[in-house]
């Protein structure tokens, strides 16, 4: 039996955004974040909105998936909107009034501005994980973190940890599946009772799963030592993702445009 494991949120379609180097996209996300926080008015936010729509279109990620992250934020969005829109006995002309509480035009506009900023931020930044495989992300992160090695940040080791975690996610999922089948065969029920009972039914799954994980970790450590792993220093890499001329130009132009919009509008 094969457990279907969807790796992160990567959407495997071919697009110009997918072929960009992970580091380029990380740089663009940083510029986009800076730009969107610099923007201070609806015209600027409107242009940022167009940029996001354009980026989603270019990435060929289905819009439904691109905005999926927003749904989880409905509480924060409502809170942001209300926190700005609700006023206590405002002197201005209120649109809605409920006792001393009121909503007025400027408050509502402010709340909308911040809510739109959050939505755009989430949709824009999630394009990074939607168009980049976890492996490319890890490699990109390692390169981006490398300058931190000057202050003794173990960039290579952190990247190795991420790689191993990624490597063992499907393995662990397959093993969990196997244990669930084995426990079901012994009469365990995972689909009965309330949430607490259901959660407790998973204890006999988690215990062997964790025991196995620790055993795995020990054997893996021996295997890594056998293959001469001694930290990140002095390692070479088989696949070095290099930024092309296109990557550099996209990054440079993109950064200028994004930060430019932020400063101008």
């Amino acid at each position, binding site marked *: 039996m094969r457990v279907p494991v969807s790796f992160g949120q990567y959407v495997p379609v071919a697009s110009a955004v997918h072929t960009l180097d992970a580091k380029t996209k990380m740089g663009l996300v940083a510029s986009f974040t800076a730009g969107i926080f610099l923007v201070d008015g609806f015209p600027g936010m409107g242009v940022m909105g167009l940029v996001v729509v354009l980026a989603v279109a270019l990435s060929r990620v289905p819009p439904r998936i691109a905005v999926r992250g927003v749904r989880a934020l409905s509480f924060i969005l409502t809170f942001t909107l209300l926190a700005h829109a609700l006023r206590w006995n405002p002197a201005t002309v209120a649109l809605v009034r409920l006792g001393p509480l009121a909503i007025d035009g400027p408050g509502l506009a402010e709340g909308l501005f911040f809510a739109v900023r959050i939505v755009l931020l989430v949709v824009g930044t999630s394009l990074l994980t939607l168009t980049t495989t976890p*492996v490319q992300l890890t490699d990109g992160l390692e390169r981006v973190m490398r300058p931190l090695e000057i202050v003794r940040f173990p960039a290579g080791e952190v990247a190795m940890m991420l790689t191993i975690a990624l*490597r063992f996610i499907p*393995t662990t999922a397959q093993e969990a599946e196997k244990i669930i089948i084995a426990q079901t065969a012994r009469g365990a029920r995972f689909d009965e009772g309330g949430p607490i009972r259901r959660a407790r039914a998973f204890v006999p799954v988690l215990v062997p799963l964790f025991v196995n994980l620790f055993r795995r970790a020990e*054997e893996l450590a021996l295997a890594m*030592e056998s293959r001469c792993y001694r930290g990140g220093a002095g*390692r*070479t890499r*088989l*696949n070095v993702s290099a930024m092309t001329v296109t990557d550099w130009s996209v990054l440079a132009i993109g950064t200028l445009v994004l930060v430019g919009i932020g400063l101008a509008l």
Partner: protein
Amino acid sequence: MIEFQDVGVVYAGSDSPALTGVSLSVAPGQWVALLGANGSGKSTLARLANALILPTTGAVHVDGMDTRDESVVWDVRSRVGLVQQSPENQIVGTIAEEDVAFGPENLGIPTAELRTRVDAALSAVGLDGFQRREPHLLSEGQKQRLAIAGALAMRPAYLVLDEPTAMLDGTGRADVLAIVRSLRASGVGILHITHHLADIASADRAAVLDSGAIVFEGTPADLFADPGRVRRLGIGLPPMTTLVSVLRERGHAVPATTVEAESLVESLWPS
């Protein structure tokens, strides 16, 4: 040459030694099979060969280097590849080629040569074209071949295989043994640890480990000639055969010749 000289190992916190007075050698191009029951000290011996464990008494030398000498540890490990029993737990990379590259990457081999080595190692174990395959999508046999490729990419002079076929089916075992044969032909010295008597037929030498000591050393033919000794040492019986004999003792109607799990299930629980 890997040389174990009168090696004894006592683990910290244990009263009884894991190995006592073991002397054995593996020459380049030689296939030495080491048999023993579970707990006989086989894996300890495997880990002594590449300095994962150091001898308490005696010494282990790899091409003249003493494994206790800390300055040569990485030299020893790049010269002696180790493949363990469970392929799943020794694959580091998220795709096959990254895993094979892991060892040589640690040695600091330049990127251009890495590519050559990785492709050559995958080809040597019959995994051409699997470069970008994710490990969890491989069969157990393919995973074990990938693990062997990972060791080969370091261009070791010796390969220590610690029960490489224990978790494999018939085809997987045959594939691994074919790889061992071709490696020997290319001059790699092989220490092959197993409890399948059938695996060792084409080995150059055979040794049997029992309770931490070597109790037989000779050719596989000499060993096969004495089935009584083999039975006494508790080796040679694959787990399925042991299970079948236990079931038969308890009166279940299972054919004595059953070797496949499916046919065992079929005879216990006819559909």
